[in-house]
């Protein structure tokens, strides 16, 4: 029984499509909000009279919609799907997933309304008002239950890398969110300890949740499409544990030079360097992606390159010399966009293009829209990250000097911020293409072309 698409996919269709559809809706909303924020940087008077969309709130809104709306939903959908397929059973507890998704989306909606009316938390990547967190935790738990069941009930006792990463992402998120919720909202820690907890949380989001979710997708799709086992796979476990054990300690990265004792940023620098080991192993394992054909792998290759580049730049900008120029500038925004959009989101797009035909049983409706999305996304991400980096370096150079006023810095960064706006427009346009394609694929009548899947062959064990 080695068909590519089985009952596992057709029976799991409903909750997965719901998750993906909600994710895409948040992606579009997040893109629109990011557009508004980018416009406000160029022209502060834009929407300045609307208190719901003052710049401080718009950035919070855009980030929350993108991370907790799009990335969360997509990550959960792809993670559950992979766990179901590797576990060998259709998704269990599907009603829980559906209810969980609805409540998660309701929670994000409440969070966004809360942010727009003034409950901005001020913590990067944690702009979720306190009152919405319990709802999100419960909703997430409801969705994650299915994944844990799929993993626990797996047919083979061995665990493949995708399963490690997906289960880690499923299990760890509620834990560190609740810890942060307690220490920042319910029983707030005193003074700068809040900043330390917030820094730890944002690195947990990156290294314990989003990166594992993306790596689960990459580790699954790449060997499936190339037909060869991953290279140097025997080290994959080392890479996994290095990420988990070193990752959260990099939380102090956001506090370099800040009002915290020196050991916190120093540990962040050190563990950031140790994370190189993880990046080396991931590069070794997934290096076949770069040469392989297929649109999913193009997206994943881009995402992987962004992931590796991001790891290197994160470590480098933690050091004193570089951080003097890059700290408190748009370079940090660029790093975040490289990670969240360039790496995670692109890998999720790749996973999406691979998974949807299998989940729905139909090929995507328009091939042109797919290549269009690829082109626009790649162009948009490169443009966004480059423009923000240059703007940040200009800003940092101006900040370092005592003689450059903020008005001058504003003038110098202006052209680059306009480029950022264009990049956001391009990205949003690409995502509109994706959404149109997705809706068209779902709307196609059942008599339309059923996906013709090639019969799978045994996987080649590659010499690693």
């Amino acid at each position, binding site marked *: 029984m*080695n068909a*590519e698409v089985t009952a596992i996919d057709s029976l799991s269709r409903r909750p997965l499509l719901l998750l993906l559809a909600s994710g895409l809706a948040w992606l579009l909303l997040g893109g629109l909000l990011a557009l508004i924020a980018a416009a406000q940087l160029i022209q502060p008077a834009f929407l300045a009279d609307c208190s719901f969309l003052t710049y401080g709130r718009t950035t919070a809104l855009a980030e929350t919609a993108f991370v907790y709306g799009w990335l969360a939903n997509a990550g959960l959908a792809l993670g559950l799907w992979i766990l179901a*397929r*590797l576990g*060998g059973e259709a998704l269990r507890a599907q009603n829980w997933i559906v209810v969980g998704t609805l409540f998660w989306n309701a929670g994000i909606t409440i969070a966004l309304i809360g942010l727009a009316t003034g409950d901005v938390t001020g913590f990067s990547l944690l702009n979720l008002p306190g009152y919405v967190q319990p709802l999100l935790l419960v909703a997430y738990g409801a969705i994650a239950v299915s994944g844990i069941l799929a993993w626990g009930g797996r047919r*083979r006792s*061995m665990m*493949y890398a995708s399963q490690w990463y997906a289960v880690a992402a499923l299990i760890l998120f509620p834990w560190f969110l609740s810890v942060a919720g307690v220490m920042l909202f319910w029983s707030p820690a005193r003074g700068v300890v809040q900043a330390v907890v917030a820094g730890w949380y944002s690195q947990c989001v990156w290294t314990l949740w989003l990166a594992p979710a993306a790596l689960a997708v990459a580790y*699954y799709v790449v*060997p*499936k*499409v*190339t*037909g060869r*086992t*991953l290279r*140097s*796979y*025997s*080290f994959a476990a*080392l890479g996994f544990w290095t990420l988990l054990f070193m990752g959260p300690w990099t939380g102090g990265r956001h506090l370099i030079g800040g009002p*915290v*004792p*020196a*050991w916190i*940023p*120093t*540990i962040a*620098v*050190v*563990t950031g*360097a*140790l994370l*190189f*080991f993880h990046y*080396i192993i991931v590069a070794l394992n997934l290096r076949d992606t770069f040469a392989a*054909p*297929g*649109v*999913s*792998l193009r997206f994943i290759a881009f995402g992987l390159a962004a992931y590796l580049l991001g790891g290197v730049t994160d470590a480098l900008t933690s050091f004193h010399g570089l951080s003097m120029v890059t700290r408190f500038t748009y370079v940090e925004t660029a790093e975040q966009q490289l990670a969240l959009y360039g790496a995670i989101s692109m890998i999720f797009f790749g996973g999406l*293009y691979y998974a949807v*035909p299998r989940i729905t049983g139909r*090929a*995507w*409706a*328009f*091939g042109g829209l*797919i*290549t269009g999305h690829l082109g626009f996304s790649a162009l948009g991400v490169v443009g966004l990250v480059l423009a923000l980096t240059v703007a940040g370096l200009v800003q940092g150079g101006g900040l370092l000097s005592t003689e450059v006023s903020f008005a001058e810095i504003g003038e110098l960064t202006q052209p680059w911020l306009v480029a950022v706006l264009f990049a956001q427009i391009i990205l949003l346009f690409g995502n509109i293409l994706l959404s149109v394609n997705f809706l068209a694929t779902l709307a196609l009548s059942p008599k339309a072309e059923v*996906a*013709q*899947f*090639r019969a*799978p*062959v*045994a*996987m080649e*064990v590659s010499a*690693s």
Partner: protein
Amino acid sequence: MSTEPPSDPRLDQAASSDDSLLSSHEKLLGRQPDEKAKYRLTPIALLFAFSGLILFAGTYLNRYAGHYDSLIYNENASPGGATAAPMAVDMVALGKKQFQSVCITCHQATGLGQAGIYPPLAGSEWVNGPEERVIRIVLDGLKGTVHVAGKEYGAAAMPVFGQVAGSGYNWSDEKIAAVLTYVRQEWGNKGAPVTTDAVTKIHQATGDHKEWSEAELAAIK
């Protein structure tokens, strides 16, 4: 896979089944067939890379973690040196801050004071002269007319700054030494710095002295 049909972006084909994926990777982790004494480079390279990173990490941590002390904010604090003892104060910086918070209102930022009312500090023989006099002025205050550079000033009294009875400021000896150190090197003044110990000595010797007059001060040394 020899002849591959051009890939249709609308449908990425998978080459192998999930079961095959799992079983082949499981085989990889199992016991490998003997490679007949061929050494694989990757594990050695990774070993070196990891050892190198750990060496870097350990060295960096040792040097820059500031003893994990909660009061060390500068990672450059040398690992063997003094830890959380109060760091040396830059007397000029402290003195400048004190001056700009209080003294500047009367003696002005230029140190020129105001004619007839507030004596100048720039080029003043009182400021540049023996420290015993100027310490007493700041410590206990000055009342009555005073002559600086030939001109008379008398409209206002110098307040009491030290920790003596009737003081509205209660500055520590260190602060007084600091502000004097600052004043004695600013605006072209060439006076020597004043140490906290010197101020303490005079403070203890004079106790709760009321405001000095010019004549009393002139009598000192």
